[in-house]
């Protein structure tokens, strides 16, 4: 496997001449923009990693004259805080990325869905949005963005739940298909992209896909912003080239006693020390929306798992049974095993339940509860039992 080592880069937060990049983007045809993003190999930075160019291509192909570009700023995954920082520091690049995406797919309207926990950013963002709209007008381009606020529901980061919320309803995920590119917000063709994805797209327009693909690996192009927390001497936000191993990451950010790294938040995977060297951080290994939590040997992995299961039990929207009941049963189950009320072999039943949830749950929330559950129980069984 390709291994690029650990390299710090500074592209996302780099100050740019927004007007110049936008003027360049607006001169390109829709097909040229989409081709540039396809060539870059950019995959979505929110966690799921869908190829951005494909999403734009599908939305562009829809005939409906009314389309939307939605920026997903409902950053709720435990351990992720990079989108807040991006919006705080370079919102002009987020707005710019939306305008470029809008041009590519043929949308005149953009909506940013910002999580309620970040409301304090809103006054500043409104001022920056106003100057953005002024600049767009001066360039002579027709595109407008509005902000919609969330109200404290993790599930609204799921794209179709987010649309429901914008429409003024309970944030319950929809059945798919139809996919958002066909029927998204207000049942119009919609491209929904993560905050960082839009900034990265802006960067690709600025520097060109040829320069972008110099960074990262074949499966994970470019660099990405990591949110680093837990047992580390240097918690915070770091932009790193994709394609390093967990070991290289731990060498840089660990406290010398790291026993496990949770990659991708509560819905991601737990990598134990014995697998650090062989695990690549990226789409060819463990994918991440940026959340990296380090745990040292003083931490109980039972407590970590219990915390995550408690989180999912509360945040499950309750619409489908596998997720609603599954989360509760996993939580109750590990509690029983810990207290000695159930045999340790009961964990095997719970592992099967996690598999069932992966197959049967309606959306990404229920489908990914098993990631953390299976990787923590699988690697730290003795800590769950004793």
């Amino acid at each position, binding site marked *: 496997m390709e291994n690029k080592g650990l390299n710090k880069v500074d592209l996302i937060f780099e100050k740019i001449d927004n007007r110049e990049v936008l003027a360049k983007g607006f001169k390109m045809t829709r097909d040229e923009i989409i081709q540039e993003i396809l060539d870059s190999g950019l995959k979505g930075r929110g966690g799921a990693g869908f190829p951005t160019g494909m999403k734009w291509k599908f939305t562009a192909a829809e005939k409906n004259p009314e389309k939307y570009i939605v920026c997903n700023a409902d950053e709720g995954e*435990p351990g992720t805080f990079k989108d807040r920082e991006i919006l705080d520091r370079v919102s002009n690049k987020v707005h710019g990325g939306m305008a470029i995406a809008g041009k590519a797919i043929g949308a005149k309207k953009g909506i940013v869905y910002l999580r309620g*926990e970040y409301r304090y950013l809103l006054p500043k963002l409104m001022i920056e949005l106003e100057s953005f709209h002024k600049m767009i007008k001066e360039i002579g381009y027709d595109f407008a963005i509005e902000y919609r606020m969330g109200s404290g529901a993790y599930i609204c980061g799921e794209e179709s739940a987010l649309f429901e919320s914008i429409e003024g309803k309970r944030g319950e995920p929809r059945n798919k298909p139809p996919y958002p590119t066909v029927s998204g917000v207000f049942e119009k063709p919609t491209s929904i992209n993560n905050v960082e994805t839009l900034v990265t797209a802006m960067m690709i327009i600025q520097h060109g896909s040829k320069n972008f693909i110099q960074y990262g690996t074949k499966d994970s192009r470019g660099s990405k912003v990591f949110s680093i927390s837990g047992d580390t001497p240097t*918690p915070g936000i770091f932009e790193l080239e994709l394609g390093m191993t967990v070991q290289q990451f731990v060498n840089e950010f660990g406290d010398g006693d790291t026993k496990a790294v949770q990659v991708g938040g509560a819905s991601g995977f737990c990598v134990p020390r014995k697998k650090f060297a062989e695990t690549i951080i990226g789409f060819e290994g463990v994918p991440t929306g940026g959340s990296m939590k380090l745990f040292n040997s003083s931490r109980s992995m039972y407590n970590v798992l219990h915390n995550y299961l408690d989180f999912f039990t509360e945040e499950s929207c309750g619409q489908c049974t596998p997720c609603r009941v599954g989360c509760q049963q996993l939580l109750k189950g590990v509690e029983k095993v810990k207290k000695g009320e159930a045999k340790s072999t009961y964990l095997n039943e719970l592992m099967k339940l996690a598999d069932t949830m992966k197959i049967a749950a309606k959306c990404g929330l229920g489908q990914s509860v098993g990631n953390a559950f299976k990787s923590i129980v699988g690697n730290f069984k003795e800590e769950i039992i004793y």
Partner: protein
Amino acid sequence: MYQVGNLVKELSDKHGHARESLMPILQAIVLKHNYLTDEAMVEVARELDISAAEVYGTASFYTFLDTQVKGKYVIRVCKTITCSMKGKSDIIQTLEEILKIKVGETTVDKQFSLIETNCIGWCHKAPAILINELPYTELTPEKVSEIIKDYMKK
């Protein structure tokens, strides 16, 4: 209890009467009064011409759209893993002692409500809390008591 008066009318004139205006209207009421009364929700239903059950159904889905009485300052303490590892329990204990309430309760003078919440995105500066919309981070028991005492003077 607060009197909703003309607020709902003003908000629906501002945001519009379509279903998509529901969240912005409810959010604006909560920003002003910290929770939704039955009266407010019925009024919103009337303005948007939808059933009150639809309004309550939507509001009760979102943790920030409280339908129970809340104080003027709602303190939300993050309980997700990093904050939990970095001393969340000490912060809760300190708050409970100062405010003389337990998690989930509101002070008698309706000034403060204390609740736990899931990840608020400040894991690198844990432990963290929100007081209404403002975040306070890298807290210690001393730091959080200072902050609350300042709010008590307001």
